[in-house]
């Protein structure tokens, strides 16, 4: 219980950090086409995928709550009305990807065949999450929000992959920098 509370707080803070970085640095550059197409460098995708990988599926409720708070209270623009169902679909995509890997004998952990310490295996999980999110959210936004753009699924997929890998590289650089300092 103590670890669940701690991990949930760390995961939520991580999500908020990626969200604020994205809103501050990326959204102003993409404003012209963000409304109809989706961001091409969606950093908060890392905020919801990486904590599930490293802290486990138990952090999902905290992450979902964080994303609801972030999109409903901290999103400063009028454009790109984020629907709560869209957020739910994004988290469902992660849940499905996690389930596929776990139940199809390919769980990613430190002592299984697909390892958490191998960045290639992380990218495999990120790809599946992004593909599912692109597919499901693309279908939802096209039908419900009436944004007719056939490429929206592809853009969601690309945005999630690039955003997550960008944050992953950034985190690796920070970890390396701290190691150098410690040594």
């Amino acid at each position, binding site marked *: 219980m103590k670890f669940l509370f701690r991990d949930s707080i760390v995961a939520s803070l991580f999500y908020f950090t990626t969200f604020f970085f994205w809103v501050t640095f990326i959204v102003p550059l993409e404003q012209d086409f963000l409304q109809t197409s989706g961001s091409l460098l969606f950093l908060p995708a890392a905020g919801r995928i990486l904590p599930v990988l490293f802290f486990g599926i138990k952090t999902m409720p905290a992450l979902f709550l964080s994303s609801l708070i972030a999109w409903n209270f901290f999103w400063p623009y009028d454009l790109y009305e984020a629907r709560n169902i869209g957020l739910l679909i994004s988290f469902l995509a992660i849940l499905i990807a996690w389930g*596929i*890997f776990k*139940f*199809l*004998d*390919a769980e990613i952990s430190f002592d299984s*065949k*697909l390892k958490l310490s*191998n960045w*290639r*295996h992380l*990218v*495999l999980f990120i*790809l*599946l999450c992004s*593909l*599912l999110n*692109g*597919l*499901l959210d*693309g*279908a939802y936004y*096209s*039908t419900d929000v009436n944004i*007719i753009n*056939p*490429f929206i*699924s*592809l853009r969601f*997929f690309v945005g999630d992959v690039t955003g997550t890998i960008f944050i992953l590289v950034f985190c690796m650089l920070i970890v390396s920098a701290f190691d150098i300092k410690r040594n």
Partner: protein
Amino acid sequence: MYKIFEILSITITFYLFLFVIWTIFIVPIELSRDSLALGSLLFLPHAARVLPVVYFGPWALLGIIVAEYLCWYYIWPFDIFDRTGMGVLISSSAIAVTWGFFKLLDAELKPFGNLQNTNWKHLVIFIIFSALFNGLGNGAYYPTFGDSEAAPLISIRFVMGDIIGALVVIFFLAIFRKLTKDLT
């Protein structure tokens, strides 16, 4: 050279076989409900894209492309669901992309790899990835450039059809193997 020829012939024959089975048994049922134009929900030939690449390697991709062109341009007997050359290329590319990702990301399906081609669960992961790439690629292409009716849910239908079709074929192959193992 002989090995490559063998791989290509088996791949093309397997694809042709599944395509004909799909055209004869599945397509008429889906045609009666006018739902085929948005993609079949039981696309058996997807198994013929996945299995040869997993078991024979990248040379099978060439066979898949040849088989797809043969089937869609010369064997497909209906007017509906106009399958353009680019759509065929996207489908084949989806398999190539999936195979490339699995190889480069240290998860190639081998008998003794991290993911094994002898484990049906790992095979299903490969099928899901390839179906998702195919669905996203073709789902974006057809509403934009193809002649078929645009539908927001076309990607999902492509993905579901590919996954279910491939799983049904694998299931039948497993039964076939079990029934015929004493004959050899």
